[in-house]
C-alpha cells in the first residue's frame, strides 16, 4: 500500500488529485447553479427545494444525511484541491528560482495564468458566501429557512450583488481552464475528444456563469422582488 503514499507525494499524482477533486467541485457548482434557478419560480418552490435537499436518499438515508455526506465530500475535495495546488506551486517556484528579464507568453491564456489567484478569490468568496447565505452572520436581514427572502434581500444591495458577479467571473476563468485541463491531466485525449475539450469548457463555463449572474442582475433590475 506504500504506493498510495508515493502517489500522493508525486507531482503527477497531485495533479490527478487536482483534476478529480476539480471535477467533483465542478459537479457541485453546476448542481448549485441549477438549484439557484428555482428562485425564478417563487418563494414556495425554492424554499421547498432547499428543504428537500435534506430528504435526498430517503428512505435509505434519514433527514439531513445526504446533505451531511455531500458537505463532508465537498470539504474533503476543497482541502485536497488546495493542498495539491499549494504543494505544486511551491515545486514550480523552486523549478524557476531565477526568472527571465524578458518573457513573452506564446500560448498560455489569461485563464491558465491566473488559476492560483482565481482560486484564492473563489476561496474568499466561498467563505463570505457561507457567512452570508448559510450562516447568515454577515446578512443584515437573515431569516433561517427562508432562502427566497435571504437571497432577494441580500442581492438588493448593489455592492453585494457586484461582489457576487465579480466572484462568478473569477469562477468562470477558473472553470474555463480547469474544464479542459482536467481531461489532459487524466489522460483523456484523442483526435475526436481533443476537438471537443475546449468547446466543452467554454460551454459549461458560460452555463454556470450566466445562470448564476442572472440572479443578482434580476433582483437589481426589479424582475425578482421580495413578494415573489
Amino acid at each position, binding site marked *: 500500500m506504500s504506493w498510495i503514499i508515493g502517489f500522493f507525494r508525486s507531482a*503527477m499524482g497531485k495533479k490527478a488529485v487536482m483534476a478529480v477533486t476539480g471535477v467533483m467541485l465542478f459537479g457541485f457548482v453546476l448542481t448549485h447553479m441549477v438549484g439557484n434557478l428555482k428562485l425564478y419560480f417563487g418563494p414556495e418552490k425554492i424554499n421547498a427545494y432547499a428543504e428537500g435537499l435534506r430528504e435526498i436518499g430517503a428512505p435509505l438515508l434519514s433527514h439531513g444525511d445526504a446533505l451531511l455526506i455531500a458537505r463532508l465530500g465537498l470539504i474533503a475535495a476543497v482541502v485536497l484541491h488546495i493542498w495539491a495546488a499549494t504543494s505544486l506551486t511551491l515545486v*514550480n517556484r523552486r523549478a524557476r528560482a*531565477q526568472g527571465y528579464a524578458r518573457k*513573452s507568453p506564446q500560448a498560455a491564456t489569461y485563464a491558465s495564468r491566473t488559476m492560483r489567484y482565481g482560486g484564492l478569490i473563489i476561496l474568499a468568496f466561498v467563505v463570505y458566501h457561507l457567512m452570508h447565505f448559510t450562516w447568515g452572520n454577515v446578512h443584515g436581514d437573515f431569516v433561517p429557512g427562508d432562502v427566497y427572502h435571504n437571497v432577494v434581500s441580500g442581492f438588493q444591495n448593489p455592492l453585494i450583488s457586484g461582489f457576487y458577479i465579480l466572484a462568478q467571473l473569477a469562477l468562470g476563468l477558473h472553470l474555463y481552464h480547469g474544464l479542459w485541463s482536467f481531461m489532459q*491531466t487524466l489522460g483523456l*485525449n484523442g483526435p475526436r475528444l481533443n476537438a471537443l475539450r475546449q468547446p466543452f469548457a467554454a460551454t459549461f463555463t458560460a452555463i454556470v456563469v450566466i445562470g448564476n449572474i442572472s440572479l443578482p442582475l434580476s433582483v437589481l433590475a426589479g424582475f425578482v422582488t421580495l413578494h415573489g
Partner: protein
Amino acid sequence: MDLTLYVWRQAGPDAAGEMKRYEAQGMSPDMSFLEMLDVVNERLILEGEEPIVFEHDCREGICGACGMVINGVAHGPQRATTTCQLHMRQFNDGDTIYIEPWRSTAFPVLRDLMVDRSSFDRIIEAGGYVSVSTGSARDANEIPVPKADADSAMDAAACIGCGACVAACPNGAAQLFTSAKVAHLGLLPQGQPERLSRTRAMVAVMEDEAFGSCTNHRECEAVCPKQISVDYIARLNRDYLKAQLLDPNAK
C-alpha cells in the same frame, strides 16, 4: 543591420550574472542568429574581452545544443525553428534583442548562455530505451504497426532534447520532453513489455530532478522546434495512472 543586444553574462556556475549591453553593427539579414553572435564574439576577442559563451554543434537544427531565450521566447520569434536556423531577417534594423539562457533550476547555468542539461540525460538513463531482446532484423512489415501509431511514434522521436519546453514553461516542467521520450518507445511493439515500468521510472527521475509540474499552459508546444504536441503529455498522464493503478506487474 544595427542591433542593440542585452546578453546574460555569467563567469561560472557559482558566479553572479548580469544582463550586459552590446552594440552589434553592420549585421547581414542573411546571417543566422549564431553567426551574428560569432561576429560579436570576434570583435570582443579583438578588444580583449571574454567572448559570449553559447552552446552549438550541428547548426542545422537537429542536435538540440543551441538553446537560448530571445526576447522572451525560447529559440526566438520563428515557430518550429532552433536558434541556429533562425535568421536575422526575422528582426528589424535598430531592434533591441534580449538574450538569456534557459532558466531552470534543473538546468544550472555553466557560463553565459550555456546550461547543463544532464538532468535530461538522467531521465533517459532511467528508461529511455528498450532493454528486452527484440530478436534479429525482421523482414519489412513483419510486425504490423498501425499507421497512426507509426506516425505518432515518429513525431515523438523528433524531439532533440534541446530543453526549450522546460525553458518556456512557466513552471519549469519537463513533461513535454519526458512524454515524447516515453511515447516514441511506448507506441511501438518493441516498447510494449517495458511500457509501464518505463513510465514509472522516467517520471520518478523527472520528479527527483528540479523540474516543476505541468499546468497545461501549452507554452512548451508553442516553442518546440520540432512541434511536439501536448497530446503526448496527456498520453504520459494516462500511462502514469495506468502504471500506478492497473499494471499487473506493480504490486
